[in-house]
């Protein structure tokens, strides 16, 4: 006997299938031209662009756990380029443009959905800062508008714009081209494509030491043996300081837990992405219908991939002030990543005092959105041993000269 006729599944309730083959799990070879340390989004993207743009395929990506199992698997997938300073909008906008072509580029359904992002303003100074950022964005060629509360309501009808709440919404910046993507699909798309071009993706391979001769890097020591390397590129996010320490390189970074959470699958209610620095909320409704929220950053240094629950509770009360209808949504799962935070809330991408050692870190909460952009720029930096114009401002030296790129205002979470 046959099944009853199945009604069509709700739209978006399930995601496109992954391909039947992704990558192999090879044994590490004794030597590579380039060893990328860290198999997260940035590491995989760097390897991909090294192979695709620069023809450098004798590359290994070393991952101490499972591919893209760190922040790549733990972030809230918000993609935008509406940062304040020229330097930042340069690299983030470069990244956004790459996002816009990435699905075809990788031949992988990354589900990049340009549903726009609202950054809410709750005080008169928020408003000044927001308008300032919108004007800077426009002159930098980044799409941005300032919306009054009515405009906010039009973009996202469920936001509470009542004037009598504790911290009323006074308006918001809006970047229509911003959006979200599906993080696993992005990472696996890069991984599969990089692997297809000959890159070795080596998992369960933790780097335990970095060997140098004179001031040139020569190899990495790993839990799976010594691997000689012409060049070594660090893409280890929260663990960057630990790796840099191996060559006596000290970084102006602190690693902190950053928590996120997800609800059950819900019928569509939230058409865009809403962020609010002032009350530490950022929320979107992902493709399957779950609400994905980021919480505040824990103040203390931590590598535990575990945060404090009162941060979640605080974030929930703020979220419900903004979205009263979320009251009976359910918290299904919480988790934390380790973000490496720099003093000016901007990344450090470029050369190091050690020849052949390249640094990509300090992205704080901004790493996911930068994945294609920094992958491209970092690959260029490694291939030419000089920075790409978009990462040139993000040197380690800036902390000595004072040429900081202070993005605290634009970072998702005020560090």
């Amino acid at each position: 006997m046959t099944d009853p006729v199945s009604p069509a599944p709700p739209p978006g309730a399930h995601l496109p299938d992954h391909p039947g083959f992704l990558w192999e799990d090879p044994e590490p070879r004794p030597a590579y031209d380039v060893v990328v340390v860290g198999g997260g989004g940035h590491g995989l993207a760097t390897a991909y662009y090294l192979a695709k743009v620069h023809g450098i395929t004798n590359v290994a990506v070393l991952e101490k756990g499972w591919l893209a199992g760190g922040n790549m698997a733990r972030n809230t997938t918000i993609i935008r380029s509406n940062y304040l300073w020229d330097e930042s909008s340069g690299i983030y906008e470069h990244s956004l443009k790459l996002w816009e072509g990435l699905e075809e580029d990788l031949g992988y359904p990354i589900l990049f959905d340009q549903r726009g992002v609202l950054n809410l303003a709750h005080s008169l100074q928020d408003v000044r800062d927001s308008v300032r950022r919108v004007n800077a964005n426009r002159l930098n060629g980044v799409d941005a508008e300032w919306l009054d509360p009515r405009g906010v309501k039009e973009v996202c009808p469920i936001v509470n714009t009542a004037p009598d709440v504790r911290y009323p919404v006074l308006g918001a910046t809006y970047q229509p081209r911003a959006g979200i993507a599906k993080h696993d699909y992005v990472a696996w798309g890069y991984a599969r494509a990089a692997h297809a071009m000959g890159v070795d993706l080596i998992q369960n391979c933790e780097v335990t030491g970095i060997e140098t001769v004179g001031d040139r890097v020569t190899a990495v020591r790993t839990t799976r043996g010594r691997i000689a390397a012409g060049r070594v590129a660090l893409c280890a996010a929260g663990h960057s300081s630990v790796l840099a320490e191996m060559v006596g390189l000290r970084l102006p970074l602190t690693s902190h837990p950053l928590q996120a959470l997800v609800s059950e699958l819900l019928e569509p209610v939230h058409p865009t992405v809403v962020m609010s620095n002032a009350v530490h909320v950022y929320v979107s409704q992902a493709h399957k219908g779950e609400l994905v929220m980021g919480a505040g950053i824990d103040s203390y240094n931590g590598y535990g991939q575990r945060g404090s629950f009162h941060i979640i509770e605080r974030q929930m009360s703020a979220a419900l002030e903004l979205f009263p209808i979320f009251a009976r949504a359910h918290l299904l799962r919480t988790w934390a990543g380790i973000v490496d935070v720099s003093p000016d809330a901007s990344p450090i991408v470029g050369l190091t005092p050690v020849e052949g050692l390249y640094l990509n870190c300090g992205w704080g909460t901004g790493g996911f959105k930068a994945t294609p952009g920094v992958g491209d720029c970092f690959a260029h930096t490694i291939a030419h041993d000089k920075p790409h114009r978009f990462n040139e401002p993000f040197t380690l030296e800036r902390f000595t000269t004072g040429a900081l790129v202070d993005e605290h205002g634009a970072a998702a979470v005020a560090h």
Partner: protein
Amino acid sequence: MQLIPCPWCGPREEAEFHYGGQAHVAYPEDPGALTDQEWARFVFFRDNPCGPFAERWSHSAGCRRWFNAVRDTRTYELLSVYRVGEPRPDASERDEVVS
């Protein structure tokens, strides 16, 4: 919600405390005598170890005293607390806390 043992008030919830980052970073005797590099190290560069870390806390919602603690940044376990001016206790025997 972790408990942090204030040397004076005893264990209190972490929400009562303010984090102060790395401990034992002295303000330079004569900043004017430092090179830009040396000054930048004081201003911006801090240790960021994965493991025991000597750091500063202030019981900001309590007795408002600053104190130091050695905490394992993998487990967040406080291995010891001590008052400002006291030397960092040797936490090495506690280094193998499971994470």
